[in-house]
């Protein structure tokens, strides 16, 4: 494997990024998609993927968003939006739902992030701002529970600083838990040996490496 550089194009758009994450989810996997952008990954899974979606509020076999007559106030996702059930779905209470997560029974979860560190620490629940009301939801349970944690985010903040950092400065969600980082400019694999760049989009490896404080290797 070597780094694939997609040049002669710009960075990935939001939908393109969701499609790339969907591409890398193994067939038949049990998957939890976090609130917000990760939820859109579901729209890009092939019809025959066999992927079974888990929602933290007690369901396996979650289907697409409910429309019109399908809307049922008793059937919502983690973002509290109405969804549908697929054949073979099941319901369970909250302690079981999180036991499923914490017990390592989910193959992949996809989360957003403020920062990811070189060793896979995740910060995605709290900015640490003094007036911010802390709210963690299921983020910490997912971060340490799923067999693989995929994070999707923009690589650079609005001020141009990288969100892949040597050490997280925001409050942590979980330690050494992120296995893959999907960004608009590059896809990173994280492990005990450090950070490797699997793909770049609209930027070459050398320029990317020069813009990061975290040492990265060609994949």
């Amino acid at each position: 494997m070597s780094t694939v550089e997609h040049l002669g194009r710009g960075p990935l758009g939001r939908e393109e990024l969701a499609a790339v994450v969907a591409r890398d989810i193994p067939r038949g996997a049990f998957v939890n998609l976090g609130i917000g952008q990760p939820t859109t990954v579901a729209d890009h899974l092939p019809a025959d993927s066999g992927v079974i979606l888990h929602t933290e509020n007690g369901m396996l076999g979650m289907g697409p968003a409910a429309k019109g007559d399908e809307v049922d106030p008793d059937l919502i996702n983690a973002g509290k939006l109405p969804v549908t059930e697929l054949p073979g779905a099941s319901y369970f209470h909250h302690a079981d739902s999180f036991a499923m997560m914490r017990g390592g029974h989910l193959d992949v979860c996809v989360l957003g992030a403020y920062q990811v560190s070189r060793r896979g620490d995740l910060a995605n629940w709290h900015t640490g701002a003094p007036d911010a009301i802390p709210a963690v939801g299921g983020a910490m349970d997912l971060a340490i529970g799923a067999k693989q944690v995929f994070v999707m985010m923009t690589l650079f903040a609005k001020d141009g600083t990288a969100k892949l950092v040597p050490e997280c400065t925001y409050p942590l969600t979980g330690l050494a838990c992120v296995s893959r980082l999907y960004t608009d400019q590059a896809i990173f694999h994280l492990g005990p040996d450090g950070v490797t760049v699997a793909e770049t989009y609209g930027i070459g490896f050398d320029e990317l490496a020069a813009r990061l404080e975290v040492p990265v290797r060609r994949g």
Partner: protein
Amino acid sequence: MTAILTDPDEALAGVEDGSTVLIGGFGMAGMPVTLIDALIRQGAKDLTVVSNNAGNGDTGLAALLAAGRVRKMICSFPRQSDSWVFDGLYRAGEIELEVVPQGTLAERMRAAGAGIGAFYCPTGAGTPLAEGKETRTIDGRDHVLEYPIKGDVALIAAHAGDRLGNLVYRKTARNFGPVMATAAALTIAQVSHVVEVGDLDPETVVTPCVYVDRILDTKAGEAA
């Protein structure tokens, strides 16, 4: 013996000041709104409320908070687009907040209901939510010691209940209901349908009647 009631105020009788009240629901799914409204009328104050969120809009739990009856909120996700009542109280320093990871919140109540004294849990290890808590390394992984959350009262919503108190739920409205039912000294369930003993398939009962003290028949209330 489970009491089957049609009057919400009777269902809430006896809740004391200073109680810990477990309130089911995730968003509005499974939210026992009729019981919460009755708790507001009942008047108990200085409450500790345990619920996943800290109220939405101006009704239900948000109305209980707005009435100034809650001293402390224990929840996983207080901040939402429509949690302005809680946000205002919190910023004014008028309510205490204990944020607990969602799975740990559920498991702490499960432990209370199951007679577990405490448990080591990997969630939150190394994060600000583990500060001040005992941590132990088990099989090479850090775990945080977590204690049960026991309720004086649980308010939950279920789809149907029989006259013995057995409950079934509907879709994702199940959420915290079955766990909270086990974790409180007094469990009160509002149900959309009361059925006769024997009408529920025993194989499908989710909350066995031993956990349920009072059932409020919300359909009967509508008809009256």
